């Protein structure tokens, strides 16, 4: 079985084979922006983009199956009703789904799968740095590249040797106070605290200049990242502010938590997908004209069981749905193969079949949109991945 083959439909959708890819420049083209949204907890792909036209969908999903309320994409797929902004982007050719992607991990453990998702390695706990961080490293060889994560903790995808900033809403720093300067003195020989504080203060200055720390974020001071629709929208807008700022970051990572829908998932996913949609909408509107230079990739650690479980939810599965969005995207249909939900097509008789290695998609976007070379992608960004072909032609 060729797990990563492209079917005729994918080719018709405008995907070039990797060997046709143009020789990429090493330097990051100016103005290009790339955002990774990590949907944690195992986002149910069959709810994000329900294959309402798949003949086996209704029987497998039972009470969770969606009907006319789902937002139509094509003859097979629709989007969840809460994803109205993303649906509007799809209608404009600026959002596409990859309905059967998976990392190389098959353990169905959140933590193992998130590790593999974020490190970009072929197996679990193989490296302690993230692939987006190593992409920053590879791009930095040719010029200054900045990256930022949104949220109080640093996500693994951006941890590593290349410096990365982080930001979360809060009180503005009093830049006239002596303390920041005294501390930078005190941290001069501290390899952990010194660089982190310097970068944090620089980001804070940028936040004050872009207005990200301004009054519209005031009410969000104590809110954890990604909770609730309005918080998510404000996060998206704030991130857009950083990405637009002169000398601001070009790469970013942000998380939306809470997708682990073992029980009563309808209400839970209404809430979480509304947050995801609002985050994307905040980014889109916040970026304004810069949206045309932007690609957003929304991924999760694994999909969920194709069948509904006994408690109105779904358990940990394999094949997942990724969303690719942005004004820089080429219009087209689904990305990758749709293995269907026929009983014999299910992975281990339970999950959506993992038809496309997520790294193929990620490599393709990094090559086309950010100009990363194959050599860097195969070895540094995604270690030992020469056998995983970049899926180019999307941008």
């Amino acid at each position, binding site marked *: 079985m060729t797990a990563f083959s492209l079917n005729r439909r994918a080719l018709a959708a405008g995907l070039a084979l990797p060997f046709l890819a143009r020789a990429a420049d090493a330097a990051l083209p100016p103005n290009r922006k790339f955002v990774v949204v990590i949907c944690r907890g195992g986002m149910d792909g069959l709810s994000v983009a329900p294959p309402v036209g798949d003949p086996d969908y209704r029987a497998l999903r039972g009470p969770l199956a969606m009907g006319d309320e789902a937002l139509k994409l094509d003859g097979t797929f629709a989007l969840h009703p809460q994803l109205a902004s993303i649906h509007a982007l799809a209608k404009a050719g600026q959002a596409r789904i990859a309905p059967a992607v998976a990392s190389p991990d098959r353990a169905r453990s959140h933590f193992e799968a998130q590790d593999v998702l974020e490190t970009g390695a072929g197996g679990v706990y193989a490296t302690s740095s993230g692939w987006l961080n190593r992409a920053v490293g590879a791009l930095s060889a040719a010029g200054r590249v900045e990256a930022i994560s949104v949220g109080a903790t640093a996500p693994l995808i951006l941890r590593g040797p290349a410096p990365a900033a982080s930001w979360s809403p809060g009180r503005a720093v009093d830049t006239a106070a002596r303390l920041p300067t005294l*501390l930078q003195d005190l941290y001069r020989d501290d390899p952990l605290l010194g660089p982190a504080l310097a970068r944090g203060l620089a980001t804070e200055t940028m936040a004050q200049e872009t207005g990200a720390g301004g009054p519209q974020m005031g009410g969000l001071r104590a809110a954890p990242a990604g909770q609730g629709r309005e918080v998510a929208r404000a996060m998206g807008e704030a991130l857009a502010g950083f990405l637009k700022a002169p000398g601001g970051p070009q790469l970013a990572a942000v998380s939306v938590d809470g997708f682990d829908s073992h029980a009563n998932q309808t209400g839970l996913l209404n809430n979480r997908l509304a947050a995801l949609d609002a985050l994307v909408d905040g980014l889109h509107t916040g970026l304004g004209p810069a949206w045309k230079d932007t690609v957003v990739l929304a991924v999760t650690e694994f999909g969920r069981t194709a069948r509904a479980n*006994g408690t*109105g939810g779904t358990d940990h599965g394999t094949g997942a749905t990724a969303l690719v969005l942005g004004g820089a995207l080429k219009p087209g249909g689904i990305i990758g193969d749709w293995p269907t939900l026929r009983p014999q097509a299910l992975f281990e008789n339970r999950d959506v079949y993992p038809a496309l290695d997520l790294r193929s998609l990620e490599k393709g976007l990094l090559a086309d949109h950010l100009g990363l070379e194959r050599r860097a992608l195969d070895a540094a960004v995604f270690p030992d991945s020469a056998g995983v072909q970049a899926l180019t032609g999307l941008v």
Partner: protein
Amino acid sequence: MAGNPRELDAAIAVTRFGLGARAGEIESAAGDPRGWLKAQIRTQGAETFPTQGEDSARRFAEFREYRQERLAARRTGGQADAAPARDGGDMRPADDPVAAARRFVRQNAAGDVLARTRLATVTDAGFCERWALFWANHFTASATKAQVSGLVGPFENEAIRPHVFGRFADLLAAAETHPAMLLYLDQAQSIGPNSRAAQLQGRRGARQPDGAPPRPAGLNENLAREILELHTVGIGGGYAQADVTEFARALTGLGLARPNEPQTQLVVFRQPAHEPGARTVMGRPYPAGGREQAGAILADLAAAPQTARFVCAKIARHFVADDPPPALAARLEKTWLGSGGDLARVAEALIDAPEAWAPQPAKFKTPYEFVISSYRATGGAPQGPRWGPQVNQALSGLGQRPFGAPSPKGWPDEAAPWAASDALVKRMQFAQGLAAAVGPDVQDPNALAAATLGARLSPTAAAAIRRAESRPEAVALLLMTPEFQRR
């Protein structure tokens, strides 16, 4: 770092093993640092914190009342509240009974957070408290689920704290069968697909007694998976998907009493909901039966050598270094296996291990540790109503919302996720705020620095504090020194 070795050991005992020094604490540990720690190992477990006199059964009853109010409101066409109760949800008018009930449930949780923070701040047994916090994080039940939020405090008091110096098997059994865990990991809804209850429910589509729509009847494997992966043998512990499913089947029947059921206990075992038949988990057969089937699996998991290895490595990582010396984990593991998982013996082995006393502090404090140790150092004990929101807000801003770990894995224990650039700025702002409040009353900031860090205070940091232009600035500097940020 000056002074004799015992002074340094005293500072390490109080700041690395404990939760940070209160006034005079390092001095009182200096006579016998190891003995000072061992005196905190008590068979009755760790001290509990007050939860307004309410146990988990009472709290769950309150949550059910709230849910009833919500249902009633929805039926009468009032302010329907369809979205799950989450922070950041819509604001409701003050006279809305649903909003009032929800506020009440939230206030319970906030009160528990405050009481727990206060205990950690004032306790003389900092090592005992840290040990308890370690196990509470190991067995995370998070308030990210609305129905769990009022139960997290009682869970810690009822299932974790009494057992932290007992046998791991008892701690495991108490944690996994507590209502908070059964709700958090969806066990309360799991039913054997071939059980009598499932057949009955399938036939008549039974409505819930509280009028909620009928629940689909079947298996939920969440608790089984996380017990294996996070609480016992760990990832790579030698189990497969089939073991998860078998264990989940064995756990069916374990659930919560309904409001109309004549039960004295909230946690019940319903034989009709239990999946009939014998089970095999990780190669071991378990005969058909009732509640004891899952009990036997839990007991075997507690005794498994993979569990000893997985948990001891985690203890070493928490107390000593993100990448701890293998010899330390091996020592702990040996004691664990030799004592049948006696956690008091394991704690002693940790104290006796030379690797745990390396002079260089390798652990970067988590936000909770930073905030607690700051309160302990400055005597800024949280008390009175204004502290509740303040503690909550401070910790949420630093990324560690109390009782709100983002996943069953609990809070991370390594520096990398916490040492984000923004996090340092947020810590600095917390230090500034606390120093502004308590700093003016600090008579001698230099003496405070010496009492807080003892022999761990570096000459560079001492000089910076000495040169501060004001008491608040000196206190803020102390809290932000590299040695105070670490342990």
